[in-house]
């Protein structure tokens, strides 16, 4: 049984034009195992952040739903912590207070000593010792998101939801924090659901990458299994023979779906039979043609 399941989920918004509704995405079904790192890639506006918000319980689906550990998601909770694109740190609290607010909520019975030690542990984990008493304004984007990650990991949620977590961080820092995230994930083996635009980031971090078509009526067209062994690092991952095959496949997909005029060559049949599962095997030829299985 899957740990986290998105079951035939659709989301409609009222259209700007007036009476009608606009379908953001439809009939999304995904099964995620415990400890799995799954990423959704798609163009802006395809509804991937909405999907993440629904899992977080911050928005409600129009049809279908999300099931975590056998229970339907009906609202936000401490078992699903979001790492926000714009960090969402309280600017009036220090780094320590921001994390402590989360820890105190997750472990209400703890003494202040225990909370302090726990917060300190996670501040150390993201390398922010010495910045405990700083306000978020005094931190760089990278440091802010380290606080965001520390806050998310500190409450030890069942599922971590990363909403384009590194989109607002400069490219050089981004790589460093991605690798830190790899290490944190290796240590905790949390179940992670991430939404991103960044193909390299997705390959570095994920077990599976779901490719979403453009909205409206977006759907998950393909699921790419990242067949690159762990542990991974940015340096070694590019040496792997599958790396560029996977990368090129995803980029081809995204470019194909960049224009809205695009007619889906996979046709309606593929839509009904669910997403294609893409595996790159060792001798899967020297072409970029993926081995396809249903």
């Amino acid at each position: 049984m899957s740990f986290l399941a998105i079951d035939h989920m659709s989301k409609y918004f009222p259209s700007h034009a007036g009476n009608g509704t606009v379908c953001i995405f439809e009939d999304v079904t995904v099964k995620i195992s415990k400890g799995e790192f799954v990423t959704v890639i798609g163009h802006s506006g395809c509804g991937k952040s909405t999907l993440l918000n629904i899992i977080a319980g911050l928005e409600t689906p129009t049809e279908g739903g999300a099931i975590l550990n056998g229970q339907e998601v009906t609202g936000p909770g401490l078992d699903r912590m979001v790492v926000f694109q714009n960090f969402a740190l309280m600017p009036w609290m220090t780094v320590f207070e921001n994390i402590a607010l989360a820890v105190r909520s997750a472990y209400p019975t703890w003494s202040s000593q225990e909370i302090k030690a726990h917060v300190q542990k996670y501040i150390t984990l993201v390398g922010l010792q010495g910045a405990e008493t700083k306000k978020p304004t005094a931190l760089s984007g990278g440091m802010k998101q380290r606080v965001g990650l520390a806050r998310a990991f500190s409450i030890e949620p069942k599922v971590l939801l990363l909403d384009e977590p590194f989109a607002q961080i400069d490219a050089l820092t981004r790589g460093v924090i991605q690798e830190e995230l790899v290490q944190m994930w290796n240590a905790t083996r949390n179940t992670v659901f991430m939404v991103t635009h960044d193909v390299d980031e997705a390959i570095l971090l994920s077990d599976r990458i779901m490719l979403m078509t453009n909205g409206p009526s977006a759907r998950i067209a393909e699921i790419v299994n990242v067949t690159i062994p762990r542990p991974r690092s940015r340096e070694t991952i590019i040496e792997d023979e599958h790396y560029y095959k996977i990368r090129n496949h995803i980029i081809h997909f995204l470019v194909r779906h960049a224009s809205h005029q695009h007619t889906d060559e996979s046709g309606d049949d593929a839509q009904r039979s669910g997403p294609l599962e893409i595996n790159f095997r060792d001798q899967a030829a020297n072409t970029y043609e993926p081995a396809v299985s249903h």
Partner: protein
Amino acid sequence: MVGEGWGEGENYSTHECMQIGITMGSKQTQHPFFISLFFLGIFLLAWHVATINPPFDPTGKTDEELMVMEFNGDIMQTDDGQYVWNPEKEKVKGVPGPMTVMEKAWVELNEAFVIKGTNDHGIAFLVGYTVSRFAVGFLVASGVAILVGIILGLNQMLFRALNPFIQILKPISPLAWMPLLLYTVKDPKWTAILVVFMAAVWPTLATTAFGVNTLRKEYLQVAAILQLSWFKRLYKVILPGAAPTIVNGLRISFGSALVAVVPAEMLLGELGVGYLSWIEWNNLDIAGVIFAILVVGTVGVILDSGFNKLAGLVTYQE
């Protein structure tokens, strides 16, 4: 050798430049004060010159005209037969000069803590009455406005339902309420406080509702994920998050309450700095009126700086 010498010269000139820079810098920090002093001096001088009354010159006036003037009390005859301006009438003729106002201020400040009669309290008492009247009205209004503002800010439907009433009530001059308030509460003391309340309640109410309503939704989402209780959500997230906007509203309320308290005292005859201004006018003591104006300004500056200190404690940078 030449190169070295030139280099040294350059070093020297840089050093000199730095020194000049430093002195210029320190001069610049002193400049505004001296400029202020300069303008004050010009203003006082102009005031003094404009209000100088030249000694009475009887040339060109017939004896009959002089007799009429003396009869009217404009001039009087000294022992040696010369005509001079009547000093009693001088007091209420024209605008008093800065020296006269300073003399008046000196007298008033020396009697600051003296109570001469029921309605003749020293200036320190008057300032105290005004400040406490202002403080009660402003604080109660702020408390009510922030509370209601938060409720409206969190409930979009309620906000839109009540907004038309707020829009109608907001532009009404707080003094317009006075007759009705006086009629209903039947007590000028409370009426004055309620006028301050009416002046202070609307800006804070409107900006608090706006600040809470436009609070970044991520903060509330974090609060929701962390399952914070209603109360914790309020004082850990909503209040501090909206604090900069609320403080802006409080600042506007503060100003309008300060503006309202003076005429309220004038109209109600309640002891205070506004009352001082009015009673001096009734005494036809124009120097006293000017002194009262200066006191009102000073009280405003003191209250405002205190407010700014408080505001600095709760605001944050995004």
